[in-house]
């Protein structure tokens, strides 16, 4: 069973979780033997931007020592053999058209989505 993980909700509780929860669960299920592709769309296209820095959160004497490193988590997914796509038009609409992306992220135009979907047994939209 090949699953297309469509990630659209972005930066939801990423400080508290120290990651994106859907990227995380994809890592976990890949480790459990699953076969996944990730499609970043909408605001989640920003997950593919290289060099994100969410460090520096301080509340009183509490400091976050391990901030989320979502670009690295995306890179690690690719390293595990997960294809990661980004919807080109969504990225361009957010000013990310010429931004340097995580190495290995593939761009797909909206017109190409039906073909991508058809390559999977199930589509899980998060």
């Amino acid at each position, binding site marked *: 069973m090949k699953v297309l993980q469509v990630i659209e909700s972005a930066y939801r509780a990423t400080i508290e979780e120290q990651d994106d929860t859907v990227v995380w669960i994809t890592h976990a299920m890949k480790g*459990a033997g699953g076969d996944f592709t990730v499609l970043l769309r909408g605001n989640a296209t920003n997950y593919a931007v290289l060099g994100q820095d969410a460090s520096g959160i301080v509340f009183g004497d509490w400091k976050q020592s391990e901030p989320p490193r979502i670009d690295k988590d995306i890179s690690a997914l690719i390293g595990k053999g997960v294809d990661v796509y980004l919807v080109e038009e969504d990225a361009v609409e957010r000013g990310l058209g010429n931004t340097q992306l995580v190495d290995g992220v593939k761009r797909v135009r909206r017109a190409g989505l039906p073909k991508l979907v058809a390559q999977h047994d199930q589509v899980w939209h998060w």
Partner: protein
Amino acid sequence: MAEQKTLTFALMDAPFEQSRTTTAFRLMHIAAKRGYKINVFAYEGAVGLPFNLQKPHANAVHGRSLEQENHPLPKDWVAALMRETERNGGKLDWVNCGLCVEERGAADAIAGVRRGSPGDFLKFAQESTNTLVIATK
């Protein structure tokens, strides 16, 4: 006899926050009536749905006592769906994401809920007729 269908749901929202969870329960209710086997993987805030310490309350604004108000509790919905599935020859297997439970101190769940991992969700999906993800937006 038709083959028994199995549906898997991944829920993610915490209780009392939005209407997606109610919609999910409506869908599960129909599946339960049809005798389907239902799997639920409760991820993140959804582990609070079967939390055993939920309590109903009276509502002075509504002008109703505790009994009159009959305040809905998601843990009761989960229990009711478990009973409904069993009445119709199905089964509701509810797995709470263990790490999510620990983050929230929500280990005290109603009977029939078990602790698991994303691996359980993957297994559910692989063994199901179909899977529906109802994520937090």
